[in-house]
Each structure stands twice: as C-alpha cells, then as structure tokens.
C-alpha cells in the first residue's frame, strides 16, 4: 500500500484503460502504475483519505492521467480538490478525455491543470499520444522534489 506509485490512471472505461496500459507497456513505461475507476477513489488516494488514510502525501505520483467523465466524482471535482490542497497542489495532473469542448478546457486550466489531451479517435493516434505523454512526464519532465 505504501509502495511508490509513479503513474495514477483514473479511467472508468476498461477498454480505454487496457489500450492505455498496452501503449505504456509497449514502451516500458508501465512500472508502478495504479489504476482507479472512479473520481472519489482518486481523490481519496491523492489526499490520503478513506482507504488511503495515513498514506505519505509527500511521495505523490509523478503524473496523474485523469478522465473527465467518471463515476461518483467527476474529473473536474477531483482536479479542484487536489489543486486546492497545498500538499497535493504540485502533483502534475493531465486530463485525458474524449471531450474537446471549450468549457471543459477552460475550466480545467482555470483550476490549474498541467496538460489537457483529447483522446484521438484513431487507435494508432491514441496509442502514440499515450506513449508520448508517458515518455514526457516520466522521462523528460523534472518534478519539483526528489
């Protein structure tokens, strides 16, 4: 439970999740991944509440891939809570969604999202985008601590 999580993927569609994991695995980026299927669980994990009570928040994931349409708490709500808490504010959060709607993009950036990516319709483009994201956030980007 206290094992280090490098990537948190919050995705309720098992097929999208499988394709995402496959794309990351193909590029050997799939170590230390935690997958959650609803927003409430994601918020609990990140803010060390509920089932994750007592988790060390200073050791957050290096990136969170967050869908917008999620059961219980939607992605915007999760984003709002995480970015409002000083302990978790610096965790990079990438919205990965099917929505290209302006209002979703504007709201996400207003809340301090680090990146906003629209899932491509084509599988190849989708796989390439996920791989690029994993590569960028895990290999190129430097986090504030560690």
């Amino acid at each position, binding site marked *: 439970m206290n094992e280090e999580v490098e990537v948190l993927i919050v995705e309720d569609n098992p097929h999208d999740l499988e*394709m995402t994991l496959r794309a990351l695995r193909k590029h050997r980026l799939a170590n230390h991944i935690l997958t959650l299927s609803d927003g409430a669980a994601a918020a609990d994990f990140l803010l060390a509440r509920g089932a994750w009570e007592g988790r060390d928040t200073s050791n957050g994931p290096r990136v969170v891939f967050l869908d917008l349409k999620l059961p219980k708490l939607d992605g915007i709500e999760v984003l709002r809570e995480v970015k409002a808490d000083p302990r978790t504010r610096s965790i990079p959060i990438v919205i990965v969604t099917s*929505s290209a709607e302006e209002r979703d993009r504007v709201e996400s950036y207003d809340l301090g999202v680090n990146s906003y990516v629209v899932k491509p319709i084509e599988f190849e483009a989708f796989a390439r985008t996920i791989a690029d994201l994993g590569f960028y956030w895990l290999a190129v980007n430097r986090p504030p601590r560690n």
Partner: protein
Amino acid sequence: MRASGWSSAWSLRAKGLVIVSVPLAFELAFVIALSFVDNLARRQQAAELRVQEITAASYRLMSLLVDAETGIRGYIITEQPRFAEPYDRAVREVPQQLARLRAIAPELAREIGDVGVLAAAMLEYETLEHFRVSVGHRDEAATIVQSGRGKQLMDAARLAVDHLLQRETVLAARTRGAHERTRRHLRTLLLSGLAVNVVVAAAMVWLFSAGVVKRLGVVVDNTHRLEREEALLPHVGGSDEIARLDGRFHEMAATLEQNRKALEASNRELDAFSYSVSHDLRSPLRAVNGYARMIEEDFADRLDDDGRRYLGAIRGEARRMGQLIDDLLAFSRLGRNPLQLSNIDVAALAREVLAAVVPDDAKVDVHVDELPPACGDRGLVRQVLLNLLANAVKFSARSSAPRISVEGKRGLRENTYWVRDNGVGFDMRYVDKLFGVFQRLHGGGEFEGTGVGLAIVQRVVHRHGGRVWAESKEGHGACFYFTLPAPEEET
C-alpha cells in the same frame, strides 16, 4: 405612469364624448344667454316705444279736449255750428284715446281712470254749454264760461294727464333700471362663462394629454423597447382601451419571452445532446478500432488473409462511423448559429478551397471564372464550396482528363454559381434524393463518403434564402447550381 382618475378609467369613447360635448354645452349656454340679451334689448325698445305712444295718446287727448273747449267758446260767441265741430270730434275720439291708453298701459289704469273721469266731466260741461246755446240760452252759457268752470276742469284734466305721464316716466325709469341690471348680470355671466370655458378647455387638454397622449406614448415606447429587447415600462394603469392595449402588449411580450426561454432551453438540450453524442458514441468506436488493431498486432501469426481482411473491414467501418458522427454534428450545428453576413469574393474563396481539396499530384484541369460577389456567411459559404469541389474532385478522379470549373452569373437580387465536373455524374431519375441526409447515389465501395455533404450544401444555401439544384448525364459529369443573395448595391 400614474393613472389619474377618469383620465385612465373612462373609455376613449367616453373621453371623446366629453371632449366634444363640454364645449358644445358651453356654446349652447352662450347662445341662450345671447338670446336673453337680444330679448332684453327688444323689451327695452318696446318700453321706450310705449312711453312715446302714451305721451302721444295723452297729448292727443289733451289737444282734443282743448280744441273742443275752444270750439265751444267760439260757438257760444258766434253761435255758428261749425265752431262746435272740434267738440263733436272730441266726443268721438276721447273714448278711443282712453281705450288706447288702457290697452297700452293696463298698470296705469287708476291714472288713466282719473284722466277719463276729468275728460268725461269736461265733455259733460261742454255738452251742457252746447245744449244751452242750441236752445237759446247763450247768455247763460257765456256766464258759465266767465265763471271759469271750463278752465277749472281743463286745468284739472291737464294735471291728471301730467300725472299720468309722470307715472309713466317713473315706470319707464324703473323698467330701464331693471333691464340695465339684467344686462349687467348677463354680461357678468357671459364673461365668467367664458373664463370657465377657457379653464375647462385647458383642463381637458391637460387631461387628454395625461390620459391619452402620454399613455399612448408609453405603449409606443414599449414597442421600441420590445424590439431592442429592453425591459418594458410598467403598466399604464386604468381600464380604458389604452390600458387594455398596454395589458395585451405586456402579455404578448411575456409570451414571447417565455417562448424565447423555451427555445433557449431546447437549444441547450440540443447542445447537451450533441455533446453526449460526440463523446459517448466515439469511445466505443475507439475500442472497436483499437481491439481490432490489437488482434492484428498480437495475433498476426495466427491470422490468414481473410482474417486480416475482416479486421480491416471492422476498422474501416469504425472509422466511417466516426466520420458520420462528425458530419452529423456539423450538420446539426449549421442550423443554430446566426448568420454572420458579409460581402464575399466568391472567386477568391473558390480558389482557396480548390487549393485545399485538389491533391498536389492530381492532374486536374481547374478553372475558376470571373464570379460576382455574394452576400453571406463566409464560413458557411466556404463549406458549400468545399463540399461541392470535394465532390467534383472525388467523382472526376477516374476520368482520363479530370476537369473542374466554377462559374457564375449576376442576377437582379441573387447571383447564381455552378460547379461543373466531367466525372461519373449521376442518373437524373434520382436527382430528388441527391440532397437528403445520408443519401448516396454511389455504392460505398465505389466512392467514399457519408452522404451528408450535399445535405449541408442545401441547408446552408436555404438558410441564405437561395436555391440549389443539379444536372447530370451519367458518365458525362455533373453540374451543381446554387444561388446566393447579391451584395447590397454599392453606391
């Protein structure tokens, strides 16, 4: 606007009635007053005439008596009957004059009676004298004359007549005074009536202004406000026709507002619908596509040609469905946004679109004619040209020498444009189906497409108030026509 009493409660008909009848009533009152004045003048004239007549009759009476007295004296002296003629005349005429006086001035009956008694005494004296002379007692008669009896009677009669005239003068003065007072009263009445009339007229003008003109002004103002979508002024109040008109107008505006809100709500619903269509329909497609791809990659060694072909078909269809969703969303969005009209250089736009749709390696003979400008929504007109030219490229791709031309013709109010190609064309029997959504005249295996392109063309052209039609001969190319409004005359 505050409703002030009758000015807003009375119907316009009642107001009109008041406005017309009040001055009329005043006019009527003036006419009656004037007839009084007229009547007064006539009565005054009559009173003056009466004085003259009474005076004349009295003098006539006196002179008859004096003449008779003088005549009798002459008769006494001369004994000649012709001297007695005035006496005969007096006997005849004095009663007539008395009757005339009584008729003219019945209220002076006592004075006239006095005159009559003395006149009768005078005549009686003269009759006796005449008798004495006629029977030969001339001396006796002369003695009586000398006694001064006749003079006595005459003086008394003269006094009575004077008295009568005096009384008449007094009466006439009294009448004149009464008339004068009445005249003054009438004049005061007329002048104050005039003043009241002026005040009433001013008040009516003010009330008409407050009760009709200003309130109508509010209604007119409200029509402008409705047009500019501003808040309406509050109700004008009252219960007359203007208040009803204003009330109905407010109701109407409220209904309009309700409809507008309902329309906005349904537009929002439609937005939410297309939002969920675009998201919820896409992700299963990605999965279909993705899993097919994953089979291709992970099970390549276990698949034969048919297996790979089937997977290819699955992926191709998934892709096509994605395109259908996109096209359908684009088509549904077309109807909603208001047109942003501007003048468009159609030729330049056509060249720009052609550059985008003609592949670099295609050997297409492209020709854009001189085209009249159009008035329209640039983005939408671009979509029309894009769809028509893309079709032209697509359906002429298999010709040995593909040729595409864009031409136009200036019209009175609208200009006509057409896109011609020498591609496969279509069967004119199915021309009616050409512009329907998802209608395709070629099999999917022959040419790619979703069948939405021409439906979009038609919708855009119709929204601009134009027409669209097509001509073709199978195997000999097609020509698509559309019209757009001509720009406003440049002056």
